[in-house]
Every structure is written in C-alpha cells, then in structure tokens.
C-alpha cells in the first residue's frame, strides 16, 4: 500500500493515463505524461476545490449549453 498514490489528484491522473493507454499509447509515454502532469495536477486541484466551495450541490452542475441559454436571455448577466 505504501507505494500506491494517496493524493486524489494523483490517483485521478494515473487513472486517466491508464484509460488513455489503449487509444493513445504515444501520448501516454512517461516523458510526455511528466511534461503535462504538473500543470494538470494544479488545475485539477484548483477546479475541484473551487467546485466544492462555490457550487451549490442542490443545483447540480449544468452543461455549457444550458448556461448559454440562460446567458443569452439576459444582457445584464
């Protein structure tokens, strides 16, 4: 267990890498993953924490189209 990642972001990233192995093996090459991992990890954490903090879970995440429709109806958004 000691060797398994404990951080949720790292687990997510590894899972994502695993899921891409079949469809894009060259993009999942370790050196290429290493290049994008720092940025991806930071962005994951920022978005996840903000979503937990700022989104009302009684109001589940909407799609962008849904947001656009409400947006389009209000020029004073």
């Amino acid at each position, binding site marked *: 267990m000691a060797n398994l990642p404990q951080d949720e972001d790292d687990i997510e990233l590894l899972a994502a890498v695993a899921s891409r192995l079949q469809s894009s093996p060259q*993009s999942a090459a370790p050196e290429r993953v290493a290049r994008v991992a720092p*940025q991806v990890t930071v*962005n994951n954490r*920022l978005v996840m924490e*903000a979503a937990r903090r700022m989104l009302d879970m009684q109001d589940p995440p909407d799609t962008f189209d849904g*947001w656009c429709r409400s947006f389009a109806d209000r020029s004073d*958004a």
Partner: protein
Amino acid sequence: MTPWLEQDMVGIANAVRDGDVTAEAITTICLERMERLGAAFNAVVRIESEAALSAAREADVARARGKPLGALHGVPLAHKDIFHRAGRPCAGGAKICADHMPTDTATVLQRLDAAGALDLGSLHMAEFAFSPTGYNAHYGHGRNPWSPAHVPGGSSSGSGISVAARMVFGSLGTDTGGSVRQPAAMCGITGLKPTHRRVSTAGTMPLSRSLDCIGPLGQSARDCARLLTVIAGADVRDGAAAERPVPDYEARLGESVRGVRIARPRGFYDDLLQPEVRTALEESLRVLRDLGAVIVETGVPDMQLVTAANHVIMASEAAAVHGRWLAERPQDYSDQVRGRIEAGLYYTAARYLEAQSLRRVLTAEYLKAAMADCDAIFLPAVPIVTPSIEETTAVSQAAALDVIAQVSQCMRAINYFALPGLSVPAGLSSGGLPIAFQLVGRPFDEALLLRLGHAFQNVTDWHRRIPPLAA
C-alpha cells in the same frame, strides 16, 4: 501606393457602390499585393486570382445593370485557412489536414458571399489555431508587417498581416483565447471577438467548441461593425448559435459616448504592463475621457482559478477533437502544439464539467468586481511590446512559453466568460510596433464596444497608419 488603399473597408464598399472605382480594378490591386507582400510576410496560403477576378467582373456587371447590391458588394476580402469552402483545400495550418478538401461551405462565408464580398484566397494561421504569436512549424512563422523579425500575433496571423498591409480590406478569424484580438493588436488594426454563440461556427474547423468564436478583423471599428452585421445570427446548421435578433451594428456608431462609464480594473492587469504600453493606454484613456466617457477604477477577482478552469476546458475539448490523430499520427504535430493538446487527455469528465459549471459563478464574480456599475471594461490588449520571433522560438522552451503566456494573458479569460472583446490600435512603440487596448462588454453588447471604438478612431489615426514596408 494607390489612394484607394487608404480607404477602410466601408469606404471602399461605398466607392464600389457609387461607381468611383470598379470591383475589378480594386481586386487587381489587392491580388498583386497578395502575391508580393503575402510572400514577404508569409501571410497567404492560397490565392484564387482567376475566381476572384471573375467574381469582380460579375459584380461590376451587376452594378451596371442596376441590380440590388449587398453591404459588401465587390469588396476584396480573404480569410483564415480554417473556414470550409466546398472544393477548396482547408488545412487549418496543419500538416495533418494538408489534403483536407471540404464538401461544405462555412455559414460565415455563405453570408459574406450573399452580401457580395469577394474571396481572394486563404490566409496563414497557426497550426490548428494553437498559437498566440503566429508560430507554425510546418508552414513557417508569419511575419509582422511593421517589422518582419517580430511576431504578427496569432492564431489568425494571416488575417492580421493582410489587413494591416492593405492586401485585403477585411478578414475573418477565429478566437478561442485571443486569436482575433492578438493579431489585430500586434498588426495595428481593429479586431472583434463577439459574444460566444453570436456567430455560427458551422463549417469551421474547431479547436475548443465552447470557447471558439468567429470574429472580424478590419482597419476600423466601423469595418468590424459591418462585417459582424453580415455574419451574425441564428443558423439551422449550428444549433448553438444565438437566436436573438442581429442589430445593424453600424446604425448607432455615430452616437455620443458622453456619460458612458468605462471600468479600468487595477491590480492583475497593471502588474503585467510594460512602460511603453502603459503610456499608450493612459493616453487612450485620456482621449476617451475627453470624449465624455467616465473612467472608473475597479478591481479584479483572483484570476488563477479562471486560468485553470479555462485550461481544463480548452485542453479537454481539443483532445476530444484530436483523439484519433493523436493516436494515429502523433509525429505529424509540432511538439509545441501536441504537448498543449495532450494535456487534455488527462483531465477527467468530472473536472471538465466542474470547469464548465464554474463559468456562471466566475463570470458573475468577474463582472461584479471588474465592471461594477460600468458599461464596459478597458483592458490592455497585449501587455508587452510585441516580441520578436527569436524571443518566442529560439530560446529555452520555458522562456518561450513564458513570453507566449504573457501575450495572451489579458485575453484568454474573456473567452471563458464568453464576453465580447474589441482590440483597438492605440499607438506605436519606440521600435515602431503597434500597441492596442481592449474593450470588453456585457453579453451581446458588441454595439457599445464598436461605438466606443469608433468614437476613439474619429479623433485618432492609429488605425489608419500603414506599415512602411507595405506603403
């Protein structure tokens, strides 16, 4: 240089309509300049001389016969090589799509055709629209007409160069994180990113569907107003295009801007400004104040989260578009572009949806802090003096990426917020490179931005300046 090239697009449209110059004559001049200057600045992918001259002659015949004339009758334009036209290759600046032959025509091109515009060819762009500088590893770097050693801005690089160097009178580009406004700012012309969904993207190669916008580049705000009036509106081919009516954006251009409240956010945007840019922006604010606008200092919320959420969306959506090519032809991407798209393979669906959901919250926060009770926001366009090609390619990757990030720093978030933004020429650096400011409006309030830009351009001449190498 013929005096006709000193006209903006609306001016030349009026001249053709009134019979002061023929469409054939002005098209011949533009085609010669595309051949000569297009090569010098690496701005042109394809010139359609025969088709353009034939269409120009037909336009002159139609006028002579008294037929109804469209708003762009006989006006020479050319566009970024990202818009489909049936039977014409469309590579999107990519090696992968070098042989791509569309069978459809983009809605925006159909609308320009219907308005009588002439399409002289396809223009240079960054690979898959992925660079704010005009970098393209496959087809060479676009070159700034004010100084060929400097970047022209991207990704609609050929559009910026061609309008600035008076090869054509207007152009369409796409803007996912500043790709209309950056080349406009760095080439000394006017560029508008409309509200997301204001313009149909049907028949246009996508980068990131929920951030992509199509917008006009022209010499003046009134050129952008006319082009937007022609291309905007609902489209049965694009269910996402907004159904709200399209105003005549030219109709209220001449109204006073006295009393219009313009927010000037401090902090985040100030931190990035180089001194020469700061001086030009302060002078522009003085001009707007003299016109009667009220300048109000405001603030900016934490932009780190906006940048992160924006990246999650853009990379994820791009990776979805490029998934098959990334798997089958990874070697056919430049390393810089492939690296940016690959990041999108590693965000989960949950993060993507959260980044989308946060748009409403973060947009409201931004408008509350930055716009407050004002009508528009005044921002830098590009906060640094236009960098050289060497500064963005021949240094370490980290140094290059740092400069590239600074170029688009004041623009990316505007796409995340889906707001309209107008880049307006505001000066020249000591090295003779254009400087610009950016006006940002509320959703679908392009008319006010254009009115402010037009008022500014009525009392300044930065947008009329012609690069000495193109004179």
